[in-house]
């Protein structure tokens, strides 16, 4: 499983995107799907940095991937705060502009883009987020 560790800072997001772009290419995704996968991973890592590490400077994010026969599996590992994804409400975009709340799209994007999104918290390997995109 190719794997790369990044500093848990927003400046890592571009490098993470490059790493994931490679993964998507190896898995044979077209540019549009590759872009979507990068978006899902960016949302996941932004959340880890912003919420999991609460923008502390010394967290790490470890990105792993595995090319599957019919897709790509990405595992993102962190050692920050855990949270209950089931308690995060689905954002509502069907409201008037002035009622839009500027938050809470990240998890939704991840779930819309990826075929599987699974969180495991506080095991010996830290928090694991496993996402699978099938072709």
């Amino acid at each position: 499983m190719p794997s790369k560790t990044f500093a848990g800072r927003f400046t890592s997001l571009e490098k993470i995107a490059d790493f994931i772009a490679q993964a998507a290419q190896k898995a044979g995704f077209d540019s549009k799907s590759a872009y979507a996968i990068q978006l899902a991973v960016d949302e996941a890592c932004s959340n880890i940095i912003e919420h999991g590490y609460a923008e502390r400077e010394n967290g790490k994010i470890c990105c792993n991937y595995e090319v599957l026969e019919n897709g790509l599996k990405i595992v993102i590992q962190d050692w920050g705060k855990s949270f209950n994804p089931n308690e995060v409400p689905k954002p509502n975009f069907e409201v008037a502009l002035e009622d839009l709340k500027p938050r809470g799209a990240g998890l939704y994007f991840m779930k819309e883009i990826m075929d599987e999104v699974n969180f495991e918290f506080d095991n010996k390997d830290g928090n694991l987020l496993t996402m699978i995109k099938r072709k």
Partner: protein
Amino acid sequence: MEITTKQYKRCDLVKAVGRIDSNTAPELEKKFNEILDNGSSGVAFDMAEVDFISSRGLWVLLETQKTCKKNKGKLVLVNVSENMQQALDLAGVKHFIDIYDDLTEAIGSF
């Protein structure tokens, strides 16, 4: 990310080059706020050379649109590539912000 701006008679054109993610979105937000603080309420955002936008970036656009509309103006987008369109579609951005294919059309809509 690089941001350039240009003033037309009825709107300001903002052009960004690069990624709009949690790292860079605050810069863009600052630029929009500067323009709005200067009394403009018409903004065209040229995305021709934006190659990534995350939800954080989309919120900057939507919040900017809120302020523009409050001031009887509007934000419009132009040159949105297919990849950017995917991200915009996830948040139904087109219901809140007009998107033009052509810069002249965008500027001519103010």
